[in-house]
């Protein structure tokens, strides 16, 4: 294993079609992958992971993971624990948004300025967790 491969974290986001927090979770994860920590992160596709995707499950088993869930059903965390192992860190979007008046009627399809700001906050939080888990 190369040094660069060792310093990688898998981020597993819920797919969250039913609520805006699911979309926030997804967008935040993509922001981390594409902008905030592109060299340190890999995204694990949850539907593929659930369907038995070998690459996804092996990565999640062999490397540190961070799960990001939109609601307290915690699908990403539960799936990771079931099929690969306990994540190094778990983020619940509603834990972070509960103090900042998450807009109840916001579109789950397209984030507006408010929900995009929340997604960016979540992305920053995920990036912090990436740095923390890689330090240990």
């Amino acid at each position, binding site marked *: 294993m190369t040094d660069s491969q060792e310093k990688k974290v898998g981020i597993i986001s819920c*797919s969250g*079609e039913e609520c805006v927090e699911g979309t926030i979770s997804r967008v935040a994860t993509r922001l981390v992958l594409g902008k905030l920590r592109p060299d340190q992160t890999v995204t694990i596709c*949850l539907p*593929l992971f659930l*369907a038995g995707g070998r690459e996804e499950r092996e990565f999640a088993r062999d490397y540190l993971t961070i799960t990001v869930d939109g609601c307290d059903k915690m699908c990403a965390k539960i*799936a990771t624990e079931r099929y690969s192992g306990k994540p190094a860190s778990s983020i619940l979007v509603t834990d972070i948004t509960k103090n900042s008046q998450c807009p109840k009627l916001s579109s789950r399809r397209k984030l507006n300025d408010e929900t995009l700001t929340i997604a960016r906050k979540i992305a920053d939080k995920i990036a912090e967790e990436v740095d923390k888990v890689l330090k240990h």
Partner: protein
Amino acid sequence: MNMNTSGQKKVIVIPCSGIGKAFGSISRDATYEVTENLRRDTTQTICLALLVSGDKKSLQLVRNNKCITVDGCPLQCAEKNVKLAGGNLADSLRVVDAYKENRQLKPRSVTFLDPDGQQMALALAGKIAKKVDDLLEEH
């Protein structure tokens, strides 16, 4: 089949929402276009992951109603997971089928759909809506 408040039947549309490819985002957006716009009274969507985590309400929904899955790639995770959950899979669509009919569209962006991605989602949504109509006619 599930009934909405006016007593009309519903079809459950389930996208893969694959996070790694533009087609995954398109599957999601096309589903929203159908469930929130084109066929808002006769369709709904659910989180695919809830089926695998054993959520009782979601499992009941897919077993008691006709389902259409929308997959972003040939791995067909939505179709597989709905089948594994014992869902009543009536039809399965793939984003690539919309792409084959709209070859000029080259969606690149995954996080936020670019104009080509939005157009492909609309084209796919039209196909899904037609399938919904066909399924509802069968009853």
